[in-house]
């Protein structure tokens, strides 16, 4: 069965690139425009991986990751966040919140897929 990936990013272009890349690879894709919007998917829907941006209005990535981790159903699913190389302390903060790993922007589709395969079978 195809794996389902939830993308959370306030940038529509990034969402579309990621969405396009993932669907081409055969994944199901769900989207959220920020943390609080993405929470609508955390209703028991089967999600195998979450990819989230960190800087987002309304509810940022860190808060969103924490929200996912307290949810019994999604407690152990891998979460990747998008970041730029300059933000080392952010990486730590996100890991602390429960993220599995990160993808450094900018990324090419191949790098995105490689990162996904690093954390999900």
């Amino acid at each position, binding site marked *: 069965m195809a794996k389902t990936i939830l993308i959370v990013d*306030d*940038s*529509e*272009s*990034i969402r*579309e*690139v990621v969405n*396009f890349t993932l669907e081409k690879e055969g994944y199901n894709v769900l989207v959220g425009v920020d943390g609080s919007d993405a929470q609508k998917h955390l209703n028991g829907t089967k999600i195998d991986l979450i990819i989230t941006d960190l*800087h987002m*209005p309304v509810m940022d990535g860190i808060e969103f990751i924490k929200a996912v*981790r307290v949810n019994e159903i999604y*407690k*152990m*699913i*891998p*979460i990747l966040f*998008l970041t*730029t190389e*300059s933000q080392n302390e952010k990486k730590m903060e996100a*890991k602390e919140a*429960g*993220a*599995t*790993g*990160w993808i450094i*922007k*900018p*990324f090419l589709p191949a790098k995105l897929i490689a990162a996904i*395969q*690093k*954390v*999900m*079978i």
Partner: protein
Amino acid sequence: MEQFKSKFIEEALDLIQDLEKSSLELSADPMNKKHIEVIFRAMHSLKGGSAMFGFNKIDAFTHQLEAAYDMVRAGKLMVSDELIDLTFKSIDHIKVLLSDDDNLSQNSLRNHDFLLNEIRQIINIEKKNSDTPTTSNNSASDAPLAPEKPKHYYIQFIPKPDIFKNGTNPILIVNELACMGTAKVYTFTSEIPELEKLNVLTCYTHWVILLSTLSTIDEIRDVFIFVDLDCELVIKEIEVLDSLKNGQLFQMLDNSFSNGEKLELEGIEKWVQETSKQNQSGNELAAADSTYKKTEQSISSIRVSSDKLDELINLVSELVTRQAGLSLISESINNKDLITIAEDIEKISRRLRDNTFGIRLIPVENMVTRFQRLVRELSHELNKDIAFQTEGTETELDKSIIEGLIDPLMHIIRNSIDHGIETTEERKKSGKAAKGKILLKAFYSGANVYIQVSDDGKGIDTRSVFKHALKKGLVKEDVELSEKELLNLIFLPGFTTAENITKVSGRGVGMDVVKRKISDLRGEVSLQTKKNEGTTITIKLPLTLSIIDGLLVKINHVFYVIPLASVSKCFEFKHDQLINAVNNLIFINDGHIPFAYLRKEFNIETVSPEIEQVVVIEYGDTRFGLAVDEVIGEYQAVLKSLGRMFTSQDVISGATILGDGTVALVMDPAKIISQFTYISEEVLN
């Protein structure tokens, strides 16, 4: 990417609007954190997006601005009129960049450099004030160059118990490592507690991996990039001198591992040092002459007549059988000392068994070089670009089998290069990577070794296969054949696939010869192909082992042994569930799998127990359940043949004698799957 570029520009213009608005507000209210946050986020999004969509100048430019506003956020830089001015100028410049990143006018270029400089200055003034000077120890020149010869690494990976809470699956990390080269993975599971005490959110396992790879140590570290704080990690290169054979090291490690030792780095390094010293002094004594050294290495093996080996194997088999008796008796007497001795003897006999059987085995690796040369030379000759890859070449096979395999494999690979892989132009036309790929893969499955040769070429066209067979008079025109049967025509004597015989593979030796040679080795050949995606030829060979690790099960007072290598899991079921299963399918964990109710298949009519066990076996890609009365446990089975009377039956491949003298029958998982699934298909039809 282009299709998303216009979307990004749209978005960027929105962000710029936000930026302008917030910058204006910030100039009126310089202490307002909210505005600073909005500006920072907008810069950040601009930076991330621009890099993605190829606006490199915006990327570099916003990177500096983002850094400046990051400092503002952190309170290291005050909001000044100067900064706001610069921000506005920068915003204007970003607009210019957005319309034409690559072909800037001279003016704009000058402006670009000027602004960049200004921002840097602002940042640097503050940096100088606050930052301690950074030492550049890790200059790029220090980075190790990629080695040409594989290096050997010791990797100890101990995940923290709570590693799962970050959604990390450590097995993926181990797999990733194993894909980097040739790896030997030792998994330590001794800390896993009993079921009642087990917390599923805790990781109890750790790994030691010996990796031979061309990758650098930094690349290995990168594998652990997400978990470096969530685990204890030791990565160390082990200097294995040329005189030291890797096999020796692995054997030592195998032995210590089966004794329950921890395989710490220190011990290994010490061992390596000592052993290489020994080897070296041995070599020095022999001669310094390098040609002599070579013969010295090959002398380290001795020729032994195969009779002696057979005798040794027989003796070991006897020992294992008697040892089972000892274990049984020691348990019934229940004397602590006796039990300890019995357990030790079991361990030792297991090792003795593995060692004895290992004597005749050599790795598939030994024949790979000649295939590599074949691919290199042939692909040059035919002007094709082909990569030859291997996987699992550490898989070991009996020496005589390896020797018998070389010719058939050469032929198969030759076919792949000649008929399978297309020319670069053809590949490009059909949207494939220009470089073709041939993969030689060897692996164990159940009591068999598989060797697969797959290419990503054009595949075999079954229609033209049929036409050829027709032309050669091998089939009649009106027969209807399934895809599989059509493909099997290739193996018929007198069939030649090449439309126009090339000098490479169309030399009269057809796949029928390959098939015959493989069956001489008691093996089987099969072929899968998909149009435009490639062909895979699978050779299945028996492991010539006469002692196997098995799972002992019981059906109506009779014992059976299922080879442990093909057992995946065991599940408990109520009798009713099995009897009432629709289509012989049961639901296990993540899906329905077919199963055989062995009482029925074996025509046993006595009353069955209320709770029964289903042993799930895996064979290649197939999963299949076997319903039995009871699972007893692991058992080392010495295989005895069934004798001529029973050659007509398939599912039982042999028998073994249990510790108390009872006979247990050994099942052949492959035959069980093929026989019983065939039956159920028949029923469906």
